[in-house]
Every structure is written in C-alpha cells, then in structure tokens.
C-alpha cells in the first residue's frame, strides 16, 4: 500500500503522456485536438445515458482487470481472461436460456455458473503449473482457444438463435442482468447489475489481499515461492487457488457482458475485453482500487470514441491509439522509473 503514491504518479503521468500523444496525432491528421477531446469526453459523459454506457463498458473491464491483477499478485500472468470470460458468458447464457427458475434465483445461478465456468478455465492452467510446471502463459493461451472452439460448437448445437447459426438465442428480459430501475435511471443505457458485482469484487479482493490470511499466503507465494514453501505454506494449492479466483473473476466479466451489456453470445470471437484487462491491471498497478480507476478511464475512452468520430470525423482508432500509447508509457514508466532511481543513486555515489 505504501507504493501506491508512486504507482499513482506513474499512472497519471502515463495517462497525460498518452493524451498528449493523442493530441499530436489529431493535429497531424489536421483535426483540432481540443475539439477532439471535448467530444470524446462528451461522448462518454454528456448525459445519463452516455454515462450509463461508459459505466457498462467499464464494468467488464473492472472484472477482467481485476482477474489479471489478482493473478499477478501471486506471481502469475493470466493471459487467459478472454477465454475465462467467454466460458463464463456461455455458462450464464446457457443457464438463462435453458433453466426455468424464479428471476432472483435464476440470476444468482447464472452469475454463479459464470464464476464456476471461469474458475474451471483458470483451474486447468493453475493445475498444470502446480503439478507439471507448465508455464501459465502457454496454458492460458491454449485455454483461450479451447474456449473459443467450445463456444463455436456449443452455441449452434444447443443455443441456436432463431435466425442466425452464429449466435445464441436472445435472452428474455427476466434472464438479463439489466434491471428496469437502472435502465430508466440511465435513460436506456446498457448499465446493469454487473456493476454492483464488479464494485463488490473490488472491495472483496482488496480485503482479501490486505487483510486475510489467504491474501498473505498468495502474496508470499508471489513474492518468494521458496520462502513460502519453507514457512509451510502450500505453494501449489495457492497457485491453483489464485488461478481459480482469477478465472472466476473473468467469468463474472462474461456474465455482465453477455447477459447484461449484450443479450446473447456470438461464436468466432474471443472477447477483446479479456486482453484489455491486462492493460487495466498494468495501469492500475495490480491494485484493486487502481484497477477501478483504470477501468473507468479506459471505459470512457471506449465509450466516447464513436461520438467523437461522429462529431469531428476523427477516426475512432485515435482513441484506441491513445489507449495503446498509455499502455506503452505505463509499461515503460516502470523502466523510466527504474532508470531515474538508478541515475539518482549514481549521482549520490558520484557525490556531485
């Protein structure tokens, strides 16, 4: 926690540098950057509906970002959030379409099944890592493709849409995470109950990492596996547990995305939000609150880019470029930070 101010400073400077880079790009293509940013932010925040959509986009990113960040605290690089999210979405959609239950219970079961599906998808790489020392990056990427093909097969076979082979039937309103009071409050936006799940997870994970024995163990394993083992901590169990929780979080992202933001699931797509989660975790310095901030910010850029394009003709890809630049600066800011430290130390050593 003491590293937070440092990490915050770095994140803010990366964001500023990214925004400047975006401004230069807009200038380079002959647009007015002030106008561009004005409409970008207006596009995300102009009215309740826009805000609701921004938050809805962010909700998914919070959960995938949290998934990556959480695994990272245990020393694991979870590239598999996309696959875990997809399977989570498949499970939730399948339950929503096939199971008849009273609405509150149905929603709970959908969310739980999404968590379980994602958790299973995380558990496999965790198990392979713990038992056979298979690198989790390889295993999670593999699991992404397995998820891709499972959906490819399962949706047409069991959940086929009325008109299209390539997507599932549309969920009835009673099986959607969207609730009328939120939809009304935000003037018909996509924001849904997933938001409460995401925010609850932020605080739950934060509490777990900082205040609970599980967090103590997971972080010990992440920082020094040998010392953890020496102290009697079950290293392998913690690796699997970490991946189960990380996978479950990404699975929840699937629930909020496929059964809240959207209302059905398509085949042939690995959700990009799974990979964006890596950027969110990076900018958020793997800290739950940082993830919240980063996800809201990226959500804003994603949600506003269409409006910016419509109003100014600046291509929406500029917004993606800004995100990419920020990621780039965040990644290098760690290096730049190290470099500055190093220079400071050398200066001290040199005494001049």
């Amino acid at each position, binding site marked *: 926690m003491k590293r937070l101010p440092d990490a915050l400073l770095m994140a803010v400077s990366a964001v500023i540098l990214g925004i400047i880079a975006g401004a230069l790009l807009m200038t380079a293509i002959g647009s007015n950057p002030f106008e561009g940013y004005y409409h970008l932010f207006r596009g995300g925040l102009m009215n309740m509906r826009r805000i609701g959509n921004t938050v809805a986009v962010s909700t998914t990113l919070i959960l995938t970002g949290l998934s990556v960040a959480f695994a990272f605290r245990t020393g694991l690089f979870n590239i598999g959030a996309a696959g875990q999210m997809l399977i989570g979405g498949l499970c939730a959609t399948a339950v929503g379409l096939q199971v008849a239950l009273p609405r509150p219970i149905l929603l709970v079961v959908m969310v739980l099944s999404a968590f379980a599906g994602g958790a299973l998808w995380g558990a496999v790489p965790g198990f392979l890592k713990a038992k056979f020392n298979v690198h989790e990056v390889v295993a999670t990427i593999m699991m992404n493709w397995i998820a891709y093909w499972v959906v490819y097969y399962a949706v047409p076979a069991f959940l086929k849409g009325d008109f299209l082979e390539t997507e599932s039937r549309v969920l009835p309103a009673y099986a959607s995470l969207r609730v009328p009071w939120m939809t009304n409050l935000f003037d018909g936006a996509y924001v849904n109950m997933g938001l409460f799940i995401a925010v609850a997870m932020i605080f739950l994970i934060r509490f777990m990492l900082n205040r609970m*024995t599980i967090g103590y163990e997971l*972080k*010990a394993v992440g920082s020094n596996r040998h010392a953890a083992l*020496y102290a009697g901590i079950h290293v392998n169990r913690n690796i699997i547990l970490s991946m189960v929780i990380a996978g479950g979080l990404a699975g929840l992202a699937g629930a909020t995305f496929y059964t809240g933001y959207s209302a059905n699931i398509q085949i042939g797509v690995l959700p990009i939000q799974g990979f964006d989660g890596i950027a969110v975790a990076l900018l958020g310095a793997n800290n739950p609150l940082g993830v919240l901030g980063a996800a809201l910010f990226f959500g804003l850029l994603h949600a506003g880019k269409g409006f910016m394009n419509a109003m100014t003709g600046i291509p929406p890809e500029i917004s993606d470029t800004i995100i990419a630049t920020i990621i780039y600066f965040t990644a290098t800011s760690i290096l730049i930070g190290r470099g500055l430290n190093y220079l400071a130390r050398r200066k001290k050593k*040199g005494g001049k």
Partner: protein
Amino acid sequence: MEYVVEMLNIRKEFPGVVANDDVTIQVRPQEIHALLGENGAGKSTIMSILFGIYHADRGIIKVRGKEVSISNPNDANDLGIGMVHQHFKLVETFTVTENIILGLEGSQVLDRRKAAKRIQDLSDQYSLKIDPHAKVEEISVGMQQRVEILKMLYRNADVLIFDEPTAVLTPQETHELMGIMKDLVKEGKSIILITHKLREIKEAADRCSVIRRGKLVGVVDVKKTSEKEMAAMMVGREVSFKVDKKPREPGDVVLDIRNLNVQNARKYRAVKDFSLQVRAGEIVGLAGVDGNGQKELVEAITGLSDTESGSILISSTDIAGLSIRKRNEIGLAHIPEDRHKHGLVLEYSVADNMVLKSYYQEPYSKNMILNEEAIRTHADKVIQLFDVRSGKGGLTPAGKLSGGNQQKAIVGREIDMDPDILLAVQPTRGLDVGAIEYIHKRLVEQRDKGKAVLLISLELDEIFNLADRIAVISHGELVDVVKTSETNEEEIGLMMTGYKWEEAHEATT
C-alpha cells in the same frame, strides 16, 4: 619507494553518513595489507575511491609517490590498480577468455587465440588452474573469483584490491585463495584485502589497518597482534570469542534420525544410512566440507524434500509424511542457510515476516482475518528482544535491513516459536563479529533452556565454540560423533575427509 599506494586524510560523506572520516591508508610494495572493520565501517567506500568509483570529498591519493587524480575505473586501470568486487562482474554465458577481454579496446580484442594463450600462461604462472575456454556459468564460484583475479593480471595491475573475497568461498577455497595471494605478492604485486574475518588476516596479511565507523583506529603489525586485540579495535570493546557455556547434562532424545537415505534432485543418493541423535539441552555440531549431504539432510528433516528410506523422529513422533507446517507445529524450528531465498519475503515488512510461520494462528489471525495490531506488537517484541535495527521498526521492508539484522530477525522469529529442536544452518554466514557473538549467545541460551540444537556449519571455529558434541559428515555418511572436549580441529579436519575418530586421533598424536 616506501609506499605503492597512499591515501591521505580521505573524507567521504554520503547523505546522512560520514563513510570515511580523515582516513589514511598506506600500502607498502609487496605486502598484503588488510583492511579490517565491521559491516558498514567504510571499507568498501574507501577502496571504491581508490578504484575511481567514488570521489573523495577531501584528501589526496598518491600512487608510487606521485599525487594522482582517479576519476573513473579506467584511470585506476592505467595506474595499475585492479579490484575484485564483493559481487563478481562476469557474464555467465561467456567464456573465461571472453570475459577477460570484455571492455578492452581494439587490437587487444582481435586475437582471441592469443588472448587465451596469455590467460593460460598467467593461470599457470600463479597456479590458478583456469581453463580459458570454459564457460563462466559452468565453473564454481571459487573459480569465478580466479577469473576476476586473472582479469586484473591481464590488465597488468600490480596493486590488487580484494573486497571481502572469502564471503562466498568454502574453507578449502579460502585457504587456496590465501595461498594464491601470497604467491602474487612474491611475484611483485601488492594486495589490499578487505575483510572482517580475523582468521584470514592472521593467515595471510602483513599489516592491518582497522576502521571503525568511518574512522581509522590504527595500523598494526599482524604478527605482533593477537586476534583478540584486533577484534577489540574493530568493535570498540572487548569481544569474547568463547561463548560462556557451562557443562550441562543432556536430557531426552529430541531429534532422532535413523538409517536415513535421501536422494538429491538428480536422483543421486546424497545422504546414506545416516543416524544421529540430538538430546534436549545439547548442541550437536555437524561438521563437513560443503556439498557432502548437509543440504539434503536439512531438507529431509524440514520436509522440503522427501526421504528415500529410514526415519526421522521428533520427540518420538515419526515425522515422515508430515507436512512442513505440521513439523513446525510439533516443535521444529529452522534457521535456513540462505536468508534471502528461504528466510524472508523481502517485499514484506519485518512485522509480516515475523509471523511467516504463525500468521494463521491466534492471535495473529482469527477466522482468516489478520490482526494487524497483534502482528505489530509481536514484531516490536522480537525487534526489541533480538536487537534488530531497522529504520521504521516493524514497518520497514525486510529487504531494506542489513544482512546482520535480517539474520537476527530470522533467529528471533525461530527462537520465539519456542521450538523443541532448533536447526541452525550456517547461522552466522557473512556476519560481522558483533552479530556473530550475539547469535552464538542466543543459541547457547536455547541449549541452557533445555532445547535441542543441531548446528550445521562450514566454520570449524563456530562448531568448536558452540557444540557439545561434533558429528562429522562425509559423502553423505556419518563418519563419527565425538565430544568436543575430546577432540581438536586437526582431528575433525581429517575426519571431514572420511577418517574415523580413532584413525584421526592416532594420525595426529
């Protein structure tokens, strides 16, 4: 020429510390000049000034009588000054030759074969036994150090600085290094040896400058000064090497190892049919050359690795198949050999490290919720009891402590667990006299309280100082167990090569 190197009235300040305060060091040609001081005394700093890494705030440096200014290591090289740093600066994947010619300019690099030839010649001249074509990662640490020596020789250095060269060496390698240094001096080199180990100074050095807290305490002739006198100069008070230890009748067997066989990671049997008992109220010292099965034995006892056959009992409970945690819970504590790898989570605070083995128990947590208050109180207690010095007390990250304080913290944590059997593996490696004295006292205290202590050490001094009985291990087998009062270092040294006590006893009398 009376002195090859003179550093006169050197002062060097770092923010908040005066690392060197008016220090004068004068080195005669062809002498081994020791620089003695506790950790943090300022030894590395003054030598880094001579080598051009730091710049003195005040004072002058003369080399061969001429005043010089050394602003970077290249200047030092040109003046014939070379340095072997505490941490080697070698590229692991390069060969010896490649490492030695790395950083040299133009023509000197071109002919690799010629370079290898010259390295071979130098190696032969000083009997360094180095293969110029070996990859650095494939040779032992002791040999890597010799590569560093060759690097200096290749650059025609004749003033050689060694910064704590023996910290990473086994006793044998240390002894060999001392021999090499004496040869170098015979061939016309002058050597500055930085160390806090008195024994090495006695063995090799001619004169010794003692530094304490950045100030020069005095320069002594090593032949005419006892280790005790030098230690007192270094620490600033009388130091007792001998720990006060009253005779004590040992009690019941606490640790009972029976016919133990252990395979190492390469499926090679590293511990063979090993049996040993440690009783309550005694310290048993396990002596042996490094790599003779000590590591595997420790791993088998602590549960870090499996045993092949045989049994280990703690207070009559067979611990085979028990998890590491269960072993801790029935009364086993372990001061690990490698404090960074096993002993601490360096990113964690000192307070969190102090509950590394007990965080899951009350009062440190309840229903899986950590009790920060209790953890902090406990840390404060250990810090105070074991004299752990840290900037922000329990909140300091463990990685920010000095080595001695890290070790005291670990020793504190393990002893605070109130174990029945304490496994102390190289508990004072790399520490200075003050910290060693302190840790030794605490180990003897455990024995006096009726705990069993198994001390595994490569330092015979330490074993003789602490152990009531000495067990010797060689090639994974127990050679013999003898009472400390009935043997001497020479006998144990022979036993370490495989002689039974009787044979060793006859050979030495």
